[in-house]
C-alpha cells in the first residue's frame, strides 16, 4: 500500500514541533544554507568552471524540480531566464498567496514550519544574487504573516539574514508583504503589480516577462512556497539523490491537498507519480474512501481551475512498454498516477495539487455554479473577454441552478467559455473557462436535463427556485 513520503512535511504536525528557530535548528535546520554557502567551484570538462552560485542553480535544474504553484514549469529553467546582465537588481518573491480553491498546503508550511521556507528563500536568493526579497502572503493569513515576521527576525538574530550572512559577505533582506483578498495576486505579474502598490492587473507578456521586466521593471523570480522549500532539500540531498524521488520528469515530492467527499480530507505528501488518484481517494493512508453508500462522480484534480475528470473515464497515456518503446496505453481514471505529465495527458492538470472529490450526491450544475461565481468574483476586470465573460458564466450557471434554465444552456455556456480561453492577458481566462468547458462536455446530459426540466416546469407556470445552497447569487459586490 503506498504511503506518504514526508520531505517537506517531515516535522509538520509532529508532537512538540514548534515554529521557532530553536526547534528548527534542533531538527537540523539551516544546514542546507551552510552547505550551499560552502559550495566549491565546480570544474567542468573543457576547462569551464561554475561559480558556487551557478552550481546550485545547475543543481536545481538537474533535480528536475517543477513549480508547485500551478504551472509545473521547471524551476531551474525559470531561474535560467533571469536577465543577469541588466545591471539592475534581481528580486525574488515568494508567492504565498495560496488561493486556488481546494489548496491548503502552503498554509501548513507557513504556520507550522516557517523557517523551512525562510531557509529555502535564503539559498535561492544567494544562488541568484538577490539582495532583497519579499514574501507575498494572503491577506487572510494574518497569523501566518506574524509567524513569518517572527521567523525572519530570528533568522536575522542568528546571522542567517541581514548583512554579511554567516561571514560570507552575502547581504539579504526579506520582508513580508500582505495581500488583501484578491485571487488574481497568485498570477505572478498580478502579484508584482500588487506588490508595487497597484491593482493586481496581470501584465501583458510580451514584453513584461518577470525574468526581465518584473518588480520595478527589474529581473524578478517568483516562486511558490513549496517550490522554495524544495531547494533546501535539493542542496541537502544533492540533485541526483533528489531526482530519484518521484518519477522521471516528475521528480521529488508534492503535498496534495485533498478535500470534498472523502472520509479523510487533508494534506498528504507523496512522491510525485508514485501514488494514483484512486489511492489518494480510497486508501486508508490517504482519503480513506468515500462516504458510506456513495459512489464517485467526478474529480477536480488540480485546484478548481483544472478540468474535471468523470468517474469511469479511461485515458490514453504514453507509457514505455517492456520492449522500451513508447506506446499508448489505456489507463482508467483511478489508476492515473498523480503527477504533472499523466494528468496533462488526461487532458487536465495537477495544477496546485489540490484534489476535490465529488460523489454521486452532487449536482454538477450547482457545483459549476459555485465555481463560476468564484471566478466572476475574482476576475480583475482588466481585459474584455474575462471581465465580461466570467460574470456572464456566473449569471448563466446561477440561472440554470435556480430553475430558470434552458436546454440550450449547455451550448450557451460552452460558447461563452470558448470565447474566454486563450484570449485574455493571463491564465485566469483558462481558469474561469476550463471548469465550464469540462463540466458541460463531460456531464452534458445533466446540464441538458436540468435545462429541459426547467423549461417544462416553466411551461407549467413555475418560477425560480430559491434556497440552492451551493450557488448563491453572483451579484454580490
Amino acid at each position: 500500500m503506498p504511503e506518504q513520503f514526508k520531505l517537506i512535511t517531515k516535522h509538520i504536525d509532529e508532537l512538540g514541533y514548534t515554529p521557532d528557530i530553536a526547534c528548527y535548528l534542533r531538527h537540523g535546520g539551516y544546514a542546507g544554507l551552510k552547505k550551499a554557502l560552502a559550495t566549491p567551484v565546480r570544474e567542468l570538462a573543457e576547462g569551464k568552471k561554475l561559480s558556487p552560485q551557478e552550481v546550485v542553480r545547475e543543481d536545481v535544474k538537474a533535480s528536475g524540480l517543477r513549480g508547485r504553484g500551478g504551472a509545473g514549469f521547471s524551476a531551474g529553467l525559470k531561474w535560467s531566464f533571469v536577465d543577469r546582465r541588466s545591471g539592475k537588481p534581481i528580486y525574488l518573491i515568494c508567492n504565498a498567496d495560496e488561493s486556488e480553491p481546494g489548496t491548503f498546503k502552503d498554509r501548513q508550511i507557513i504556520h507550522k514550519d516557517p523557517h523551512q521556507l525562510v531557509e529555502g528563500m535564503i539559498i535561492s536568493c544567494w544562488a541568484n544574487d538577490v539582495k532583497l526579497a519579499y514574501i507575498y502572503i494572503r491577506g487572510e493569513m494574518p497569523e501566518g504573516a506574524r509567524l513569518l515576521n517572527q521567523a525572519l527576525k530570528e533568522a536575522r538574530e542568528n546571522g542567517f539574514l541581514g548583512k554579511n550572512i554567516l561571514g560570507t559577505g552575502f547581504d539579504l533582506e526579506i520582508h513580508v508583504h500582505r495581500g488583501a483578498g484578491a485571487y488574481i495576486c497568485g498570477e505572478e505579474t498580478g502579484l508584482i503589480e500588487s506588490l508595487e502598490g497597484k491593482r493586481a492587473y496581470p501584465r501583458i507578456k510580451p514584453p513584461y516577462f518577470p525574468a526581465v521586466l518584473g518588480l520595478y521593471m527589474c529581473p524578478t523570480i517568483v516562486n511558490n512556497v513549496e517550490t522554495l522549500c524544495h531547494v533546501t532539500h535539493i542542496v541537502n540531498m544533492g540533485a541526483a539523490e533528489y531526482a530519484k524521488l518521484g518519477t522521471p520528469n516528475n521528480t521529488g515530492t508534492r503535498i496534495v491537498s485533498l478535500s470534498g467527499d472523502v472520509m479523510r480530507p487533508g494534506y498528504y505528501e507523496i512522491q510525485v507519480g508514485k501514488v494514483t488518484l484512486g489511492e489518494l481517494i480510497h486508501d486508508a493512508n490517504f482519503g480513506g474512501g468515500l462516504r458510506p453508500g456513495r459512489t464517485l462522480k467526478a474529480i477536480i484534480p488540480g485546484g478548481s481551475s483544472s478540468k474535471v475528470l468523470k468517474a469511469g473515464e479511461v485515458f490514453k497515456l504514453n507509457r514505455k512498454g517492456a520492449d522500451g518503446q513508447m506506446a499508448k496505453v489505456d489507463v482508467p481514471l483511478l489508476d492515473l498516477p498523480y503527477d504533472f505529465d499523466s494528468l496533462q495527458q488526461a487532458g487536465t492538470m495537477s495544477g496546485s495539487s489540490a484534489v476535490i472529490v465529488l460523489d454521486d450526491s452532487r449536482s454538477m450544475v450547482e457545483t459549476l455554479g459555485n465555481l463560476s461565481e468564484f471566478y466572476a468574483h475574482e476576475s480583475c476586470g482588466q481585459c474584455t473577454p474575462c471581465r465580461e465573460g466570467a460574470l456572464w458564466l456566473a449569471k448563466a450557471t446561477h440561472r440554470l441552478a435556480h430553475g430558470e434554465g434552458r436546454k440550450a444552456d449547455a451550448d450557451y455556456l460552452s460558447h461563452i467559455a470558448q470565447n474566454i480561453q486563450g484570449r485574455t492577458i493571463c491564465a485566469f481566462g483558462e481558469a474561469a473557462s476550463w471548469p465550464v468547458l469540462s463540466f458541460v462536455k463531460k456531464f452534458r446530459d445533466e446540464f441538458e436535463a436540468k435545462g429541459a426540466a426547467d423549461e417544462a416546469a416553466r411551461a407549467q407556470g413555475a418560477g425560480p427556485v430559491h434556497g440552492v445552497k451551493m450557488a448563491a447569487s453572483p451579484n454580490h459586490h
Partner: protein
Amino acid sequence: MSFTVPSHLESELDEITTHYPVKRSASLMFLHALQEHFGYVSKDAVEWTARKLGLQPINVYELVTFYPMFRQEPLGKTHVKVCRTLSCALQGSGELRERFCSKLGLDPHAHAPQTTPDGKFTVEFVECLASCGTAPVVLVNEELHHKVSSADADAILQKGKAA
C-alpha cells in the same frame, strides 16, 4: 472629528515604507494598518495614505475598492467570514452562513457584508480561505475556525455577544 493617526502607528508605517525601494509598494500595508486601527478605511485614511506615499488619492482608492479585505464603512466587532467556495460549500457553508444570518436577524440571502444594528457582528460570505481540508471554515476576526458545526456557529455567536 479630525483624522489623526497616532504617532506610534505612523512611525511603524514609516519603518514599513523603508522595506521598499518605491514607496508606493507600502500602500497595502498602510491600508491594513489603518483598517486595523480605525476599523475601516475612511476617505481621510485614503488621503492620508496618498499624502504619505506621494500618491494621488485615486491611486489609493483604486486599491480599497479592488481588494475585498478593505472596508469603507465600520464593521461589527465580531467579523464572521464564512467561506463560500466549493470545498466548504460541499460541507454546508451555505447553511452555516444562513444560520449566522438568521440568528442575528440579518437577510440570509444577501451576499455582501451585513452588520447588525448594534454593531456587534458583521457576517459575510468570502471566497476560498485556503483551508479546504477542514471545511467548512469560518474566519472570526483573525482566528480561523475549522470544521464548523451548527453548535460551533452558535458558540461563536455567544462569544461575540458577550464581547
